């Protein structure tokens, strides 16, 4: 039972990462590690989208 729940939790975490939920946390962690101030979540989200959709991202 516990193993099933851990497995499902793992799937949920992977799904969150695939959809990019954790992107801001990873970015902020990296930027703070460099000693700089990260963008706000809103600013980061918009700039990521603009970068993502300026090149082929969705196939035929």
């Amino acid at each position, binding site marked *: 039972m516990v193993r099933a729940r851990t497995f499902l939790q793992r799937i949920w975490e992977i*799904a969150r990462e695939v959809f990019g*939920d954790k992107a801001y946390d990873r970015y902020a962690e990296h930027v703070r590690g460099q000693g700089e101030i990260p963008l706000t979540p809103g600013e980061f989200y*918009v700039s990521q989208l*603009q*970068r993502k959709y300026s*090149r*082929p991202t*969705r196939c*035929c």
Partner: protein
Amino acid sequence: MRYLRKAIWVVVAIIGALGLAMIATSRGEPLNAVWLVAAAGCIYLLGFRFYSRFIAYRILELNDRRATPAERLEDGRDFLPTNKWVVFGHHFAAIAGPGPLVGPILAAQFGYLPGTLWIVIGGVLGGAVQDFVTLFCSLRRDGKSLGQMAKDEISTLGGYTALFGVLFIVIILIAVVGLVVVNALKQSPWGLFTIAMTIPIALLMGIYLRWLRPGKVLETSLLGFVLVFAAVLGGRHVADSALAPYFTYGGPTLAWMIIGYGFAASVLPVWLLLAPRDYLSTFVKLGVVLALALGILAVRPTMLLPPFTRFVDGTGPIFAGKIFPFCFITIACGAISGFHSLIASGTTPKLLTRESHARMVGYGSMLLESFVAIMAMVAATVLQPGVYFAINSPAGVVGTLPADAVATISSWGFPVTQQEMAELAGKIGEVTLFNRTGGAPSLAVGMAHIFSNVLGGSRLMAIWYHFAIMFEALFILTVLDAGTRVGRFMLQDLLGHFWKPLGRTGWYPSIILTSSIVVSAWGYFLYQGVVDPLGGINSLWPLFGISNQLLATIALCVATTILIKMGKTRYVWVTLLPLAWLASVTMTASAQKIFHPHPRIGFLAHARSLAEQLAASTIPADRIALTERLIFNDRLDAVVTTVFASLVLLILIESGRHWWLYVFGRKQPVLNEAPMVLSKLPAEA
């Protein structure tokens, strides 16, 4: 342990062989789809275990001790070492499009066997190899794009060929998928209401994600999905109410609506409409693909379509032409897709933590895509053949009236009655299923049949049908708006060389101008397809297939060049064999579409036959203008095909010239890889 592993692979091989044997020996009696799925699945597993491993370690020499660009250039945004399965999910979501769902449905006119064989063989030996090797090449070059690699590894001419190839393929691709959506939604108030609702739902999601919960994509997608499902359920009430006429339109009006939508979605801020729709469609797409796989395993349907039909003779109603080359051109993305090489040289290489992950991400995700194509083929075969042809055959071939259509189709040896079609249409909540070309409605009927056998029975078939239509239209429209935006960026980049302000991606006048140009280009082809009496798919889908395989040719030329430069000339057959096959298919298809004397195959022959009818005054006065436009369109299509064929020849000659120089020592190969730096990451367990 070693013996156990070997034993497992022997069992996999036996199951696969058994499945193939069942298919080969099923003379006359309908076969259960499970055999097809098992055979395909086992071949994929064997291909991954043996062939991809051979490529990975003998040819490409993937080295986990070498730092990937994600590690060396980590910036928290684009370059980011990411879990292998997350990258797999990202990459698969990016490459999974409508192609593997529509192509097999259309190719099923030859029977299920030719298409299935190509999906499996082409996938394992062609598409998966292309995706894998392109991903590897880009990985070793810090995530360079295909165009950039074509320029650096082949020549500047190679680079420009790639650039123009991509621009053209984007235009044709959007036109063709737009046509699929128009044909799925015409005269369907339920369908149009559901899809129309996805726009306000996406706007809501966009605002939620931008202002309320930035970056919380998964929960927002879940909320969006619930709302969209409510729209599917609500659509029935709208279709039965006084609002129905406001959602009932024919092809041309729908085409204009889609053109307007594409323009709006590409000029509005990306976070408002485009991105939320993309999240929603990815969520639905991944969920439905999984559900379809489970559904097929649960229902184990019988395949009613025979392995071969009489249309192997080239007289098929859905598209004209013989198996070679048109079955391969039609299936396109289900086996090999050049567009994937753009994705494989996009964001994916910048996320890989270790080189060995490229095998699962590159090779594996294409196999999964190929498997999706198999499932689409199965969904096509669960229909009675007569029903399949009645849905997919254009009125221009079988006759406009239902009575004519059933007579024609029954005369081909596929019995079907008007009553049968009327009952089916009633069951799924549509006015009619005749002349619903483009593959999407028949896929939806097949999926509804499978899902309703799992849950709900025939009472819920209408819900399942419209759910399937919503699923297809949703992610086709994402291809449309994301593609228009990409096309706009490329055009801005190109025009910026002539007048700098046009290259400024944030400058609204430039945005409006370039978006208008891109939308007009695909809008023209879309409209042409909608008014075409032969159904549009007959002319547009081969154009799409040829352009897609052109891009695959470019990718394989780049891959072959790089393999030679790596000193792996004796293994170069791995990319050269699929390349040779693709080149022969693409060139034959181009030649036939331009020069074939039969008007249903050759564009110029069709134009000539219409011109003769005009000259003999056999065209009614109210159709003269339309006929003149059809003649122009045929000639334009012939020109476009010539351009594609020329680009293929150009890249082959240019690449071949360089291979000759390298192999015979006339030119020193320079490998442009990023510097080798040892990885500091802990070794994988």
